[in-house]
């Protein structure tokens, strides 16, 4: 199967086996196209995200496959071609950073600019150090700065070069909310200015929402889903992914009947009596399935709601209320226990309290049918 | 016109004085390298830039002559080595009285000699021991110096209680204080020391001049005063 090679994109087909001790091994088998812009690589720990980036950068040997940037083939196992990492023009921020311990922050950042004229180089280095707010550490060694500061230096070091592809392996972990926000803004601006494919590994839903135009979901070394953040993360097809993406409600259900004209099917939740409508899926009456619903997608009312388009209304009692930062997490017992998020403002307005009778409103299209 | 002389290490003291006289007499300079005669042989065979070779063992110059590396007819036996039994001054053994029997004293645990495999003084020492018939008795006590100077260090440092050394060393300033007993020359084959001018000598005139000086009575006197005897063949010249 040939990969269509278009311009300003990274096309990769990668197969790699990692052998551990004994018989255990890990197989990465991936085929993808990354257009310019930020693509999020999302997946649980050990899914193979770092391995994939290593293969693309040429740091891990790819067993089989083909990798091309803007139509320029940098790896082809059939032709025995493998451009060495230093010639791939791929910038890569490692999970482990790997700052050069013997060089100052400044020298670390200037490292990728050996050919620039001194003035240009100094200017660009200063600029990027300022952008990542580490200019006051420019004469320090990596050992003399904090963890978050190191992270910013590693980012600066990679972004100052003019790469054709940018690989970022969890670049913002360990930064505080404000710094994260400002660096995200800078990354967006950088992206808008450079228009190159950026593969961005993160586990943070927040970062996905703030940065991602596309999400590639990796699991056990395989791509399990690909698309916009909403498509991938809000409508997951696999249980593991549903958990990883933070679907607070993941309910067992039995299919009752399919209503094909309406594009819905009725399911009964767990062994309870409550029934809800969910979008039509590949299932037959009697099948046991799972339904994933985000806690934030559930509307909570203190009176039976009237004149609403929503068909799924469940009556229940609040069994617990817990403040979590900007959120209030309510558990509502409707035979099945639902987790519902409301804002503190709503909590007060609705005078929510444990034991209070409430109604849950679930829009059909917020209920996701999940395999397995 | 400086001549380079390769000389056996046991000549050190004698040759220093010979050199001064030679330089005063002829106005020519000489530069001496001391070392092991075996090494010099190997070096000369491989092109070492020496003009004259003063060997501790006549065998080596003969080898050079045979190989055509020496000026024919210049081989000159300039001295015979003498050996002595030497003990530190503080020894309680009466060396002068006992002579070679002193070596059998139970307080003597180690006797230092030159390595008989390649050092002529070592060979002579073994021959002497054999000739008085005590070789087997003292054999286990023998320690070998790489050359005769090292054997001297073994005794001088007290690690060996007695040594069979070159007379030239035994009367040198550092060891003059010790007790010594000269082993009669008839107890060992002669330690023939010979000089030769090398084919590769740059300034053969100077080399010859030096050899001539070495044959002079003055040189012979100096050699004798440093513990060498001058062979009959040389005396007749």
């Amino acid at each position, binding site marked *: 199967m040939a990969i269509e090679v278009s311009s300003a994109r990274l096309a990769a087909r990668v197969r790699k086996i990692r052998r551990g001790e004994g018989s255990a091994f890990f197989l990465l088998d991936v085929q993808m196209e990354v257009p310019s812009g930020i693509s999020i690589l999302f997946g649980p720990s050990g899914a193979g995200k770092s391995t994939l980036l290593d293969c693309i950068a040429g740091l891990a040997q790819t067993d089989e496959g083909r990798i091309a940037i803007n139509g320029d083939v940098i790896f082809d196992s059939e032709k025995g071609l493998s451009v060495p990492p*230093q010639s791939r023009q791929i910038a890569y921020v490692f999970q482990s950073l790997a700052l050069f311990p013997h060089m100052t922050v400044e020298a670390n950042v200037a490292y990728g600019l050996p050919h620039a004229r001194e003035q240009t180089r100094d200017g660009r280095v200063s600029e990027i150090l300022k952008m990542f707010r580490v200019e006051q550490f420019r004469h320090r060694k990596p050992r003399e700065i904090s963890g978050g500061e190191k992270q910013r230096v590693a980012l600066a070091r990679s972004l100052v070069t003019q790469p054709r592809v940018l690989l970022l392996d969890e670049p913002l972990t360990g930064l505080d909310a404000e710094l994260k926000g400002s660096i995200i803004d800078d990354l967006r601006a950088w992206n808008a200015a450079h228009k190159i494919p950026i593969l961005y590994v993160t586990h943070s839903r927040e970062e996905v929402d703030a940065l991602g135009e596309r999400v590639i979901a990796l699991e056990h070394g395989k791509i399990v889903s690909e698309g916009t953040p909403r498509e991938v993360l809000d409508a997951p097809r696999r249980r593991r992914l549903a958990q990883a993406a933070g679907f607070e409600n993941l309910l067992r259900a039995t299919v009752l009947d399919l209503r094909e004209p309406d594009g819905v099917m009725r399911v009964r939740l767990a062994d309870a009596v409550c029934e809800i409508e969910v979008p039509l899926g590949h299932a037959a009456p009697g099948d046991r399935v799972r339904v994933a619903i985000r806690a934030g997608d559930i509307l909570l009312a203190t009176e039976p709601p009237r004149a609403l388009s929503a068909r799924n209304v469940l009556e229940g009692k609040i069994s617990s209320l817990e403040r979590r930062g900007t959120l209030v997490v309510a558990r509502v017992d409707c035979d099945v226990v639902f987790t519902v998020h409301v804002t503190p403002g709503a909590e007060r307005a609705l005078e929510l309290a444990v034991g209070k009778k409430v109604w849950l409103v679930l829009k059909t299209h917020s209920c996701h049918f999940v395999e397995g | 016109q400086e001549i380079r002389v390769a000389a056996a290490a046991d000549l050190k003291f004698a040759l220093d004085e010979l050199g001064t006289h030679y330089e005063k007499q002829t106005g020519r300079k000489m530069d001496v390298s001391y070392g092991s005669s075996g090494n010099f042989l190997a070096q000369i065979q*491989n092109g070492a830039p020496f003009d004259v070779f003063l060997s501790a063992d006549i065998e080596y110059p003969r080898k050079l002559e045979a190989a055509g590396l020496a000026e024919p007819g210049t081989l000159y036996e300039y001295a015979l080595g003498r050996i002595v039994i030497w003990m530190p001054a503080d020894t309680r053994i009466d060396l002068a009285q006992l002579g070679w029997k002193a070596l059998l004293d139970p307080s003597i645990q180690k006797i230092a000699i030159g390595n008989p495999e390649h050092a002529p003084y070592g060979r002579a020492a073994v021959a002497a021991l054999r000739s008085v018939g005590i070789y087997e008795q003292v054999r286990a006590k023998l320690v070998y110096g790489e050359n005769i100077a090292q054997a001297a260090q073994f005794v001088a440092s007290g690690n060996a209680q007695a040594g069979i050394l070159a007379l030239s060393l035994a009367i040198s300033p550092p060891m003059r204080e010790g007790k010594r007993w000269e082993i009669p020359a008839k107890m060992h084959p002669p330690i023939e020391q010979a000089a030769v001018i090398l084919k590769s000598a740059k300034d053969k005139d100077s080399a010859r001049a030096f050899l001539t000086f070495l044959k002079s009575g003055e040189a012979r006197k100096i050699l004798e005063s440093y513990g060498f005897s001058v062979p009959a063949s040389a005396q007749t010249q």
Partner: protein
Amino acid sequence: MKIEALLLSVRLALCVSAILIAIGVPLAYGLAYSRWRGKFLLEAIVALPLVLPPTVLGFYMLLAMGPRGALGKLWYAAFGHGLAFTFAGLVIASVLYSLPFAVQPLVASFETVDSKLLDASAVLGAGSLRTFRRIILPLSVPGIITALVLSFAHTLGEFGVVLMVGGNLSGVTRTVSIDIYDRAQSLDYAGANRTALLLLVISFLVLSAVYGANRRAGRRAWAPWPLR
């Protein structure tokens, strides 16, 4: 004369150390990073000059450098004179003899550089040479110092090889260690002591300057250093 010998020795040691670093660094790089499975054989060969007595090694060198030896013939063809008994000959012989002391510590240092840093360098566009110069070398400074000190000091003290291929020619090949040896051989202990002491003092000064500078720089320059 003593000074002459001392200067000669220092000159020889400097030349030899410089050449050893120049040869040893690429050689050690090859040994540390080559993926050739048989390279342990090469490593063993590099260590071999060590196991021969110096005078014996010197003897074989003398044969090689002599008019009938391969090296000697080559040299003669190129320069019109022999190689043995010249300063150049001493340098070559000492380089061969001290090679293991330079290469071994270098290999050991190069091998302990964190490979993640090499990866980082590569993705920043640096080729092997730049990575080597900017990352591997500076992080191997302790090993390089070791290599330098061992080769410098060893060449100063070496006399077997030097005696054999040098022939103890004053001003050309009579190094200070041969001078001391000569004095000790002729039982001139006072002279030997004086010269040895002079050599020791000078060496001590040089070595402690190197180590002192190394420490002072090291504390600040190289990260792996324990600093508490």
